[in-house]
């Protein structure tokens, strides 16, 4: 009964981890996942995906979900 957490790019570097598995107990939304794994409030401008779909921080999550946090994307540049 757990939730997979993934961090990318500058957020991954700041937290010093790219993946985490947390107990879903007491977790109701994506922001709760962040707080529990990162140990701090969710910074502004952080993007959230639940099961590989963009989501809001208050999106409900449940056992087995994969929740990801990342900075604004920078795919362009051309």
């Amino acid at each position, binding site marked *: 009964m757990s939730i997979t957490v993934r961090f*990318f790019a500058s957020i991954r570097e700041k937290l010093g981890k790219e993946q985490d598995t947390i107990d879903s107990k007491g977790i109701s939304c994506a922001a709760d996942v962040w707080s529990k794994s990162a140990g701090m409030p969710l910074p502004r401008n952080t993007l959230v995906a639940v099961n590989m779909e963009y989501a809001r921080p208050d999106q409900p999550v449940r056992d087995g979900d994969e929740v990801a946090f990342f900075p604004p994307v920078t*795919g362009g540049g051309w």
Partner: protein
Amino acid sequence: MVKIRLTDRAFDPWQEIARHQSGQPALAGKFGATAVFVGTLRDFNQGDAVQAMTLEHYAPMTQKYLERVAQEAQGRWPVEDVLLIHRYGELRPNDPIVCVAVWAAHRDSAFDACRYLIDELKTRAPFWKQELTPQGRRWVTPEAGEP
């Protein structure tokens, strides 16, 4: 017919397009227009020399996302085929980063669908760039005025 490929190896977009097209004999004669965009790593950005770039991505989400936008483009415009190749990992200046090719009966559909895909890729696909400059490594941020 839509083909999407994420790769950490250097690729030659022109060879890939030629190969994809010749591998689709049913396309022959059906398309009048091919619009292509290739994004390539420059050796400068925001006033600094760029020696290398690391492109990080969220692999399964990127794949899913690219499949969806390619399908959306096919729904919005009458296009015959789409090829989308995106690099990740370590890149050097002059390396192609992305290649989008769209085959359609007419030029407007080909151009519009190609541009739509590129604009979506730039703003929504989960890719993050870290540049190596003479001042060290830096994450590229959208606020820094990436043109």
